[in-house]
């Protein structure tokens, strides 16, 4: 750690990790509901719907806190300057976590905006916006006063501003359901297939630069190409969600064609990550960080690219839309691209934040493989359930609950893999929070 204010990141990361554990526990409850008859009394008190709002809001909250912590860690090194205001950064953390907790407690008592993934009530949205403004102000001022601009920094800031602006489209009440969903996707899709990809590209580029010592010019060149392709395919690619919501028919063409190209920049990211890692110029201190970087690139491609493209064409989407196929894709994409990205920066930063040069990697390796393999299992189980659902419910037309009956076994398998996943996550959190220096080699 070169700059004192990078220490802010530690607080953000720690909170993020704890929320991650909570998210996964609630995920298990969701899967449980799919194969076990939860009695009416329990359903009345803590229904699937409330739990789902927990699961997804915790997900978004911990990931955003991770990104913000990541930004507080990266920006000082890029600008060669301390963060503008350390105090503001901590106030922002308290504000956002407080808002998050208020939102979760509110859900329990039915205080909700009632729109999936955007359940946070309007009043609390305002707090989120204030938190976001504090953050952008702090990061922006750091960059402005430093007067040093790099492409990585610009991409990071651009992604964060893009993210914040898109959030605003989710706040108003829309009378017309079709228009409501149209703009709902401006938040959801333009986040994960737009703004967040920019942030990912910037963080990956930063980590690769620091770890491999590859020339900055080369890293930045690929960074431009990647974000250019991400935005070219991703913006108009939003159309792959507009097939069945009563928007004009041409979205079937626009959405299909642009989104089918979305895997291209992801492939590019895998290739250039691999290239940089192979042609590294620096000595490896902690091999584990590479495991995370490469794992992130590869599972990003598998979850978002491969599982995305299989159901993105309208001819297929007509049958798979809104089924467990979507859930299967959602899990591997979020895990591969954004959970592993966060964990990459955590594993990169934590040793530095603690002043450890080389740490004991054994546990870290075990939990990387535990989490990744069990997430592949979860994805596979949801995927099989989704194919069964698409066929029985949609193609054969046998009714929703009939299809659910045939899917039970696979939902139970997803639950079982989920238990393994939870163990992996808990061990990983322990490993990061209580990291030990490696024993001196003989």
């Amino acid at each position, binding site marked *: 750690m070169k700059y004192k204010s990078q220490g802010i990141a530690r607080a953000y990361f720690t909170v993020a990790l704890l929320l991650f554990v909570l998210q996964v526990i609630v995920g298990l409850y969701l899967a449980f509901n799919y194969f076990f008859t939860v009695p009416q009394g329990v359903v009345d008190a803590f229904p699937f719907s409330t739990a789902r709002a927990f699961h997804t809001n915790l997900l978004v909250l911990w990931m955003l806190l991770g990104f913000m912590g990541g930004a507080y860690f990266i920006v000082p090194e890029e600008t060669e300057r301390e963060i503008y205001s350390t105090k503001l950064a901590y106030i922002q953390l308290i504000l956002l976590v407080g808002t998050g907790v208020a939102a979760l407690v509110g859900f329990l008592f039915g205080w909700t905006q009632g729109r999936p993934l955007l359940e946070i009530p309007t009043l609390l949205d305002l707090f989120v916006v204030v938190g976001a403004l504090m953050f952008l102000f702090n990061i922006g001022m750091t960059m402005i006063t430093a007067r040093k601009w790099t492409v990585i920094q610009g991409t990071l800031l651009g992604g964060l501003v893009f993210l914040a602006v898109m959030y605003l489209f989710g706040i108003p009440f829309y009378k017309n*359901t079709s228009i409501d969903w149209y703009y709902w996707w401006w938040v959801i899709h333009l986040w994960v297939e737009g703004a967040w990809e920019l942030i990912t590209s910037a963080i990956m580029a930063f980590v690769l630069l620091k770890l491999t010592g590859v020339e900055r010019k080369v890293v930045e060149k690929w960074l431009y190409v990647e974000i*250019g392709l991400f935005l070219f*395919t991703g*913006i108009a690619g939003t159309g792959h969600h507009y097939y*069945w*919501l009563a928007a004009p028919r041409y979205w079937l063409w626009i959405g299909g064609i642009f989104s089918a190209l979305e895997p291209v920049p992801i492939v590019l990211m895998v290739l250039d990550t691999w290239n940089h890692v192979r042609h590294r110029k620096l000595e490896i201190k902690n091999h584990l960080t590479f495991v995370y970087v490469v794992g992130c690139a590869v599972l990003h491609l598998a979850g978002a690219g491969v599982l995305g493209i299989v159901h993105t064409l309208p001819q297929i989407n007509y049958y798979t839309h*809104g089924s467990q196929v979507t859930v299967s894709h959602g899990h591997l994409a979020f895990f591969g691209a954004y959970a592993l990205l966060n964990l990459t920066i955590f594993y990169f930063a934590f040793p530095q934040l603690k002043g450890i040069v080389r740490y004991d990697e054994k546990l870290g390796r075990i939990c990387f493989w535990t989490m990744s393999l069990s997430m592949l299992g979860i994805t596979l189980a949801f995927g099989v359930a989704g194919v069964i659902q698409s066929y029985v419910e949609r193609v054969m037309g046998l009714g929703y609950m009939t299809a659910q009956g045939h899917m039970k076994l696979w939902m139970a398998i997803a639950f079982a893999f989920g238990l393994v996943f939870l163990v992996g996550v808990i061990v990983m959190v322990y490993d990061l929070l209580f990291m030990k220096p490696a024993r001196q080699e003989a």
Partner: protein
Amino acid sequence: MSNRTAFWIFILGTASSALLFIFLTVDMHRQVDALTNADKLTDDVVAGKKVWEKYNCNDCHTLLGFGGYYAPDMTKVYKRRGEDGIRFIVKEPEKAFAKSWRKMPKQNLSDAEINSLIAFLKWVSEINNGDWPPQDSDKRIANSALKLTAGAGVNLGMALLQDKGCLSCHNYKGVGDEDVPLEKAGEKYDAETLKKLIHNPQSVNKDASMPPQDGLSDAELETIVNFLKSKN
């Protein structure tokens, strides 16, 4: 490739896609009123949308395929269940799904809220969304029933009675295992009443113990009613 070229790939890629997207968004706003029958989007419908959101129905049920996947899609539920069917389910889900292995919470909606909700679901069921979802498409009859008839020369109506589980409570000319026969139903009721009765028995006979029948498309219901009405 130089860094300059890379920079221009970024600028042009982003700008072209963003311009196209904004242009099409403007066009969507021009067309959406016609596609969604905005003239029928009354205050009651809007109130119903608010009820839908207030109770967070959408995190269990999908609407237009978006939301939680834990319960049936609501886009065309108005056509499947009708007004009375929806009212019965939302008021007393613990009774409606007493025998089901998956429950829906009792959320104690007021009658006014339920009325608005029904208006909302009716409006949604009529928008022009490319005939999704496939299982509710009026054009289709369950494949499994079609298959039954293709091989064995079975009448399509009979196949549907079998396939839709009617024969687990009913008996038709010796087929089926319980004792409410259906042979006479065609004489007792006219076609419209039959439809209502099958969709939601309580709407015809308050004390009916037959559960509302979901999962029938319009075409399937039509076929069953024609079959019951015909003297074969």
